C-alpha cells in the first residue's frame, strides 16, 4: 500500500493505492491522523480511493477513526472515487448510510464540494 498526501488550500488530498488490510491500516491510521491534525482548522481531508483495491475490517476502522478525529477537531472527511468492491464493503458495514463522511463519485467532485476547485 502506498499513501501520498498533497496539500491544497483548505484540503488535504490523500491518495491510497493498494490494499488496506490490518498491516497497512496501522501505517495508514498513523499517517493520516498526523496529516489531519496538522491540517489547517476546518480543512477537509479527501481520500482519493480510485486506486484502493481492497479494504478489510481493519481498513474500515481506519476510516471510522479518521472520521471521528475529523469531527472532534472541527474538520471534515470525504472519500472519492471508490471502486465497486470497496463500495460494497462500505455499504455492508453501514458506513455509507451512517453519513460519517461524504462520498463523492470523483476526486474533482470532492474538491469542488470542498471549495478547492
Amino acid at each position, binding site marked *: 500500500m502506498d499513501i501520498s498526501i498533497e496539500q491544497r488550500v483548505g484540503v488535504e488530498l490523500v491518495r491510497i493505492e493498494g490494499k488496506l*488490510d*490490518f498491516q497497512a491500516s496501522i501505517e495508514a491510521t498513523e499517517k493520516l491522523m498526523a496529516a489531519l491534525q496538522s491540517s489547517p482548522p476546518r480543512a477537509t481531508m479527501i481520500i482519493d480511493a480510485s486506486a484502493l483495491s*481492497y479494504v*478489510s*475490517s*481493519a481498513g*474500515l*476502522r481506519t476510516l*471510522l*477513526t479518521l*472520521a*471521528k478525529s475529523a*469531527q*472532534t*477537531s*472541527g474538520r471534515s472527511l470525504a472519500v472519492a472515487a471508490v471502486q465497486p468492491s470497496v463500495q*460494497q*464493503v462500505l455499504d*455492508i*458495514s*453501514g*458506513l455509507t*448510510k*451512517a*453519513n*460519517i463522511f461524504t462520498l463523492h463519485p470523483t476526486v474533482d467532485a470532492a474538491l469542488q464540494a470542498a471549495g478547492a476547485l
Partner: protein
Amino acid sequence: MASNLTDKTPDISLIEELCLLAIDDNGVISPVTSDAAFGMSIVGACLVELCLRGRLDAELREIVPGAPPRAVVWVIDRSPVGEPALDYVLSEIAAADVTPVVDWTYRLVSAAPNLLGMALQRLQARGIIALQEKLILWVLKSRRYPVIDGRELREAKLRIVDILIGNSVPTPHDSVLIGLAQTSGVLAQFFSEGELRRLRPKIDEVSSLDIVAREVDWAIGDEIRRRAQALALAAGAYIG
C-alpha cells in the same frame, strides 16, 4: 464540535463492557443474559475485540457463488491477549480454517456461559465488580455482582448516550458496543421502550459499523426468526 467524552477507547474490552451493562443497580445480572441473543452477542464481542487487538482480521468473501458476500475471519497473530475469554475464542479460531463469522457465532454460542463467567471473573479481579453469594432457603445459591465504584459503567452509559442523543461519531469500539447492546436486549436496561423507539433511527445509523458485528447481528436475527418459526410450527401441530 463533538464531545470529547467519546474520543478515547476505554481500557475495558467489549465483552467486559457488555457484561457490565447487563448488571443492574442491585448487582443482579439481567435475565437477558440467558437468551441466545445475549450469548451470540458475547461471542460477537470477543470476535470484534480480537480484531481491535490485532489478532484477527475480516473481509467480505463470496462463499456461495451468486449469493451476497459474507464476512470471514482469520488469525493474523496467535499470541494470547491475556484475557481468558478472548484467548479461548482466539485458540478456537486458530485451530480451524478460515470460516464465516456467522458459523463462528453459532459454533461458539454454547461456550457463551463460560465466556460470560470468565468476563465476570476478570471484572472482579480488576476491582470493577464484587461477588456476593448467598444461599436461599439453605439450598439455592444466589449471586450478585455489585459494581464497586461505578466509574466504568457510568462512562460506558455516558458514551452511549452521547453518541445516540448527541452528534458524536462513535469510535469503532463504541459503535459495536451499541449494536451488541441493542441486539442482546441490554440497551433496554437503561433506556425506556419509548426512548428506544425514538432512538431507533440513530441506533441503526451508528451501531455495528463493522462487518463482523453486522454478521453477528444477522445471525442473531436469523436465530430469532428460526425459533419463532419453530414455535409457530409447534403451535400449529398442537392445534392441528
